[in-house]
């Protein structure tokens, strides 16, 4: 028996599943992006690049893209910075710290729909606990129309997304921090490195693989945050929280323009691929060596 035949049981199942559930749907989506299929009728026509022209000029698509970039930037910044700061405090292995890590991780196991509903009630301007709390502690000027003000609604949703996923990122950073050899830190300390230079010259460069995973995962998550937006705002008010995934959903299942939705999905795939590639290059994950 040839070597590749013997090894087949190891790679074939994974490849098969990947091909069936990722490559096939992607190619099918690409195919439908050249059609005017409505998602219901048994027939459709090939319309060439018409969908690509229509989507690239679509005002709502532009709004969704801009909102999505704002959403991504807000989540990327808050989630990465806060989870890194927490991870730096939570690396040691004591009972209290393990309990804290579990506590921070807890929101991650809640379904996004539940998180969305919980926070919709918290944010509610008349019945919500957030504004009530701010008023009680004398910060009533900080009270906001969190989901109803189109200038801040996308950031209010982003805050919830960060709240729900910071614990997950803490775990990734803690794993990265624990894999840094202690000797390196010790010798740097002996050489007189202060806390800041220790972090920026030793810890951060060696954390690059973990940081790359956190950053790319957070980015992809921010593009896929459909359920949270759907339950909290439905894309409103006035398109201010419409992001690419809700745009695609609306095109496919509410407007019955599957061809257009498939086209937007192709743009979506290309955009995530480019951003993730750039992030990996910028974080120089390939240059780590001990």
């Amino acid at each position, binding site marked *: *028996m040839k070597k590749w035949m*013997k090894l*087949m*049981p*190891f790679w*074939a*199942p994974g490849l*098969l*599943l990947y091909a*069936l559930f990722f490559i096939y749907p992607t190619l099918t989506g690409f195919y439908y992006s050249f059609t005017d299929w*409505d*998602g*219901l*009728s*048994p027939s459709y026509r090939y319309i060439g690049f018409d969908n690509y022209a*229509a989507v690239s*000029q*679509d*005002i*709502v698509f532009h709004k969704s893209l801009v909102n999505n970039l704002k959403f991504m930037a807000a989540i990327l910044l808050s989630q990465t910075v806060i989870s890194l700061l927490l991870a730096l405090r939570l690396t040691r292995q004591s009972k209290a710290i393990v309990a804290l890590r579990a506590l921070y991780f807890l929101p991650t196991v809640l379904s996004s729909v539940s998180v969305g509903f919980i926070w*919709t009630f918290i*944010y*509610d*301007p*008349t*019945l919500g606990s957030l504004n009530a709390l701010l008023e009680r502690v004398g910060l009533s000027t900080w009270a906001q*129309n*969190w*989901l*109803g*003000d*189109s200038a801040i609604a996308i950031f209010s949703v982003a805050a919830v997304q960060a709240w729900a996923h910071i614990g997950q990122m803490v775990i990734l950073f803690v794993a990265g921090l624990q894999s840094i050899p202690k000797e390196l830190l010790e010798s740097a300390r002996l050489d007189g490195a202060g806390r800041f230079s220790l972090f920026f010259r030793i810890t951060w460069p060696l954390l690059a693989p973990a940081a790359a995973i956190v950053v790319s995962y957070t980015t992809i998550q921010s593009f896929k945050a459909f359920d949270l937006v759907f339950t909290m*705002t*439905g894309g*409103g*008010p*006035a*398109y201010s929280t419409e992001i690419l995934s809700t745009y695609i*959903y*609306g095109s496919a*299942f*509410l*407007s*019955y323009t599957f061809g257009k939705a498939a086209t937007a999905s192709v743009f979506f795939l290309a955009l995530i691929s480019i951003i993730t590639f750039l992030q990996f290059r910028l974080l120089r994950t390939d240059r780590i060596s001990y």
Partner: protein
Amino acid sequence: MKSIFKLSKIALVIAAALLVTVLAACGSGNGLGNSANNNDSGGAAGETKQAGSGVKDPVTISFLHWRGEDQAVLDVIIDKFEQEHAGIHVETQVFPSDQYQSTVQAKLIDGSVGDVFTSFPGAQFEAIAKAGLFADLSGESFVSAYEPALIEAGQKDGKQLALPYQLVYNIPIYNVALFEQHGIEVPKDWDGFLAAAEKLKAAGLTPIAFAGADIGPGQFMNPMVMNNAPDEQIFAKLQAGEAKLTDEWWVKTLTQFKELNDNGYFQKDALGTKADAANALFIQEKAAILASGSYQLAGNKASNPNLRQKLLAPITVPADQAVFEGIHTTTFMLAVNSKSKHPEEAKLFIEFLSRKDIAAEYANGTGQNVTVKDVDYTSEELKVVSEWTTKKTRFQPRFTITNTEVQEAVLSSIQAVLGGTEPQKAAEEAQAIVDQQIGK
């Protein structure tokens, strides 16, 4: 080495089994190519067969709808139907209304579920009709059980494709006791409406509870626009490019929304308020008017039995120029799936629901008015609504917008104005989206 070889053989068998399972799963899920013509494909919700001898085996028909809150009443009705038609079993699947919009079409395609299903009027009705999933009900005897004027929303190209079952008035509800307490008559024109709101506000009440974050704009736009654009084809003309949102009728409507908002007649931060919170304000009698519709009357009463409620519509023009008094919608449209394997049994079920005693049981049990003729309403709320059957109302304008993205643009312009955008600018921005949608 031998054991490794054995292990790899086992793994190969597992891989092959996995492949077969996955392919089989994929094969059964792919409905597009073979659904249209292959009547044997797919499993039924409950399998039934016609015996060659002419003796019918038990038949299970599937009923899809979105009214989870009505299910207890429908279950009793279904029991009665099954007793009368021994051998027919009705299996119900209920989806929340927003999910229903997006999932039901795909389920109907292969005919395995939804022998009887319900449809919303407007965009969903148009999409299902275009896909040819409605069986034609024209000429069925039970069609005559309905008020002819109230089943037009289920007609297309001269055919009765669906039968609207529920009758809803999409106009605000007001608290009768609060109006009486403050000496307020039901206003007959726009100045009167503003004066009433001012009086309520001065009394420390929220004049209008408005769910600006979800259903509010879609409900309240209807009475607000009905007399500003008395042409019932106005949104059809908008989609045909013959009318524009920048025309006087829509800019005036937006300006009046702004007036209500700027004067503080909606609760604070109305754009962030969802339906539950707006309902709570009304139920707790903190708000005097609830900008929703008659479908909410029974729910309000259940939460606060002391409430005395009636309906009123804002008249946005001088009283002598008012053409319409309110808005009605006929919805929960009963239909038979054209791909159903049991169309006769499905029609029997609709015939049963169309009987006036059964319709009355449904109406009185659920607190929803129906389109069936001569139904006796027993609850106070339903009587309130039935008063409106003699008034001059028009079909809900929002449901005459058949393009969902145009509808979204229209609703977003209301939200934009409430968020501080000038009416003219909001109208222009919405019209730009409409132009793209209709290819102008």
